């Protein structure tokens, strides 16, 4: 594809996304506002579902440019809550995570999205997404216990930041500590192809095929001893590496 075609494609694509976004926000808030007034659900639950629905919409609306394969959905446990972990390559990964059918999922991030993503950070705050850097360990553990009681699921990118070369970075502890402390299943989801759709350094999109593979859930009760969250982390990292080797 020539550069001029790619540039035209990107201009059209982002205008198209902008129109869809405006229409979605108007229509969704016609539902959200009465739900808030009538107290049908808590505000953060509503906005998590809103954000998930938006992610689904954007990804599916990108279909002319994107072929998508979602494998292994049947592996998702029926119980809630869950901790769902994804590998991380690009800015747009977060939209693809909405392909996993867990609408009430709270995203745990590390600082920068709240500071940098103007406009989007409003929806993040309303959805109660957590900033590990801001909260600190004790407050995070305390808040997560309260949310687990409400059956809210959690989403992490355990690498903490985007991979610039497609390789899997070091996994941070948060997801595994949370799953172990609360004894809830952890579901790894391997995503490939997004780094061809949008590179990690520039929001220029290219037609491509994206695959999400839900891997076998990991249950904390299968790990014993004081180091069980660390062992879970190692085990899940190995699962990701195996899946990425198969998918690439």
């Amino acid at each position, binding site marked *: 594809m020539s550069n001029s075609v790619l540039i035209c494609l990107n201009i059209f694509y982002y205008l198209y996304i902008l129109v869809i976004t405006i229409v979605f926000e108007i229509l969704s808030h016609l539902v959200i506002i009465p739900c808030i007034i009538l107290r049908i659900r808590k505000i953060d639950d509503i906005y998590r579902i809103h954000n998930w629905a938006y992610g689904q919409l954007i990804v599916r609306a990108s279909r002319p440019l994107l072929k998508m394969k979602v494998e292994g959905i049947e592996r998702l446990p029926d119980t809630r809550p869950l901790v769902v972990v994804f590998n991380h390559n690009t800015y747009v990964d977060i939209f693809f995570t909405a392909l996993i059918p867990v609408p009430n999922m709270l995203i745990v991030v590390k600082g920068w999205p709240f500071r940098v993503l103007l406009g989007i950070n409003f929806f993040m705050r309303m959805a109660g997404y957590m900033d590990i850097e801001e909260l600190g*360990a004790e407050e995070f553990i305390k808040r997560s216990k309260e949310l687990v009681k409400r059956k809210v699921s959690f989403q992490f990118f355990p690498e903490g930041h985007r991979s610039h070369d497609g390789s899997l970075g*070091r*996994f941070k*502890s*948060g997801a595994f*500590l949370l799953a172990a402390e609360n004894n809830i299943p952890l579901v790894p989801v391997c995503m490939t192809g997004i780094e061809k759709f949008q590179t990690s350094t520039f929001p220029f999109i290219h037609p491509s095929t994206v695959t999400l593979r839900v891997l076998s859930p990991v249950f904390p009760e299968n790990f014993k001893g*004081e180091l069980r969250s660390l062992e879970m982390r*190692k085990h899940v990292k190995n699962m990701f590496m195996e899946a990425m080797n198969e998918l690439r």
Partner: protein
Amino acid sequence: MTDNEIRDKVKNVLVEWFEVGPEQIIPGAELRKDLDFDSLDTVDFVVALEKEFKFKIIRSEDESAIRAMRTLSDVFAFIKEKLKQKADS
């Protein structure tokens, strides 16, 4: 336990459980800036150190020392102090 033994054990923990490269493990390395630890990584790190060195963290006594740990030198000093307390008790 000698200082070198403490360093070697900490190195083992960091390499085995935190995927830190051996070349990154220098006394001046900062946990957050150089090893990219967040507060939850520190929780796991302390648990791993407890197991490796067979001492027990007492929350009321050790919390401020753990919060104050910035570099690996601080970690080595903390471990040395815990081992001394264990030997004295």
